[in-house]
């Protein structure tokens, strides 16, 4: 599918000059940032973790962002362990530098990118998205990144490419949850793989995130690079990506292999299609007491509804 490329950048969107200064000047700039009171929900990052990005006014929400502490201590990231606090507790085992991402498959110019080149590839923007977990809770997160489409276009997808597959790092030394033991009989199959249809992957909402809350992406949130697909359940947004492959067949995805009747390839947020074992009609926003109604496509129906025109979403769940 061809996506019309428009002039997406106003001059005001261009990353401030200080990002392009030398490291010392950048550090000084970051230190100056520490003096400016910002969102009280986020602590100021240490200077070496600060990441500047221009807020994109087209992607913000009326709801307040979930506190940074909750965003970084309540995670599903089975590479670290099955409990919500495992990722934060074991995050130090992951080494997000050096890191490369292979972007290949049905591409005219397959390439291996260094993570530092990806971060500098295009101006970084801040987008506030809501994240809806399949377990019926949700958060609001100010991500930092750029559209996945920008990266995919660099490798020039071939005409036959219909899908994109994401692969997460496999390394039991860095991901303790991948260690084999007698107790890991029920564990997921590694590597964790996820996938999108190419038109979903090229949709402007689909973000490659390298940071959140004004800082480099914390390890427990999928450092150094992850995808964020806000209209799908959270597990579709693969973390700690080492490979992005263009393909003509629907990729096998990890949770779908684990329980095909529970986790479909599409896994769009849909309050009218329940998980076989629990309702998806409502969700608990982290930090709120009462449950709130879950919105079709997690509130992004206007932007993405047309991608699924004519499809039976009960069948293609």
């Amino acid at each position: 599918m061809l996506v019309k490329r428009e002039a997406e950048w106003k001059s005001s969107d261009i990353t401030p000059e200080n990002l392009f200064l030398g490291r010392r000047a950048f550090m000084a700039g970051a230190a100056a940032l520490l003096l400016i009171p910002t969102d009280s929900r986020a602590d100021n990052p240490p200077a070496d973790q600060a990441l500047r990005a221009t807020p994109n006014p087209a992607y913000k929400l009326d709801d307040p962002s979930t506190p940074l502490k909750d965003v970084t201590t309540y995670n599903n990231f089975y590479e670290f362990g099955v409990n919500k606090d495992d990722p934060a507790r074991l995050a130090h085992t992951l080494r997000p530098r050096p890191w490369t991402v292979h972007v290949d498959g049905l591409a005219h110019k397959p390439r291996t990118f260094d993570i530092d080149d990806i971060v500098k590839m295009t101006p970084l923007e801040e987008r506030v998205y809501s994240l809806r977990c399949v377990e019926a809770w949700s958060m609001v997160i100010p991500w930092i990144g750029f559209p996945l489409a920008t990266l995919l276009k660099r490798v020039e997808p071939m005409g036959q490419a219909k899908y994109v597959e994401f692969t997460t790092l496999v390394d039991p030394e860095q991901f303790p949850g991948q260690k084999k033991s007698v107790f890991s009989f029920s564990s997921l199959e590694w590597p964790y793989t996820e996938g999108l249809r190419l038109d979903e992957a090229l949709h402007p909402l689909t973000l490659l995130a390298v940071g959140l809350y004004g800082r480099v992406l914390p390890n427990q949130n999928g450092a150094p690079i992850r995808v964020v697909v806000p209209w799908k359940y959270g597990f579709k947004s693969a973390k700690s990506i080492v490979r992005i492959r263009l393909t003509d067949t629907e990729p096998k995805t990890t949770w779908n292999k684990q329980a095909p009747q529970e986790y479909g390839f599409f896994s769009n947020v849909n309050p009218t299609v329940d998980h076989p074992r629990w309702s998806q009609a409502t969700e608990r926003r982290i930090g709120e007491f009462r449950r709130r109604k879950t919105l079709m496509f997690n509130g992004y129906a206007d932007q993405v509804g047309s991608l699924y025109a004519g499809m039976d979403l009960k069948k293609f769940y």
Partner: protein
Amino acid sequence: MLRRGRLALKTATWVACLAPLAVLLWRAAAQDLSANPISFVTNWLGDWTFRLLLASLAMTPLRIAFNISWPLALRRLLGLFACFYAALHLGVWLVLDHFFDWSEMATDIAKRPYITIGMTAFVLMTPLAATSTRGAIRKMGGRNWQRLHRLAYAIGVCAALHFFWLAKKANPQPYYYAAVLALLLSVRGGDWIRRRLARVRAMAAPALH
């Protein structure tokens, strides 16, 4: 058993059974209930319900395996505490999670097998809790009382299914609980078969003369 020893044993059991609740209240006061406190509290209470249920179901197997009688003195107390935590677990679901949204809860009970079976377990627990007094045992007669309280096995199986059906498939925990339950039930099953065989042998023995 000596009366003093029995008293010490029961006191220790009370303290041990109330400790998880005390820790939970402590963590609540310290605002240390994770980013999703309602889910945390529900899971905490559910975990301890199941653990105490398994503890109460472990007393008879302990007697069988090690030929000691004192565990039997704790069986009822542990069972009652399991019921106490189950009531709190259910109460949190009712009040904090769904905030008295009766129609939604009714739908959930009917439609979600894990909630149906969890409710079943709780309903089965109530007659056991209600007949846990010494007076009730005397009134019912030991034999009938025992027969009724065999429901505890069914409750254990319900609890295991409840956990299996609500947990995500990659979570190994339900398997651990189910394995402990299976072990406890098999000790009893083995003992039942042994006694049956002994009786058959005892009846058959005279014919050999």
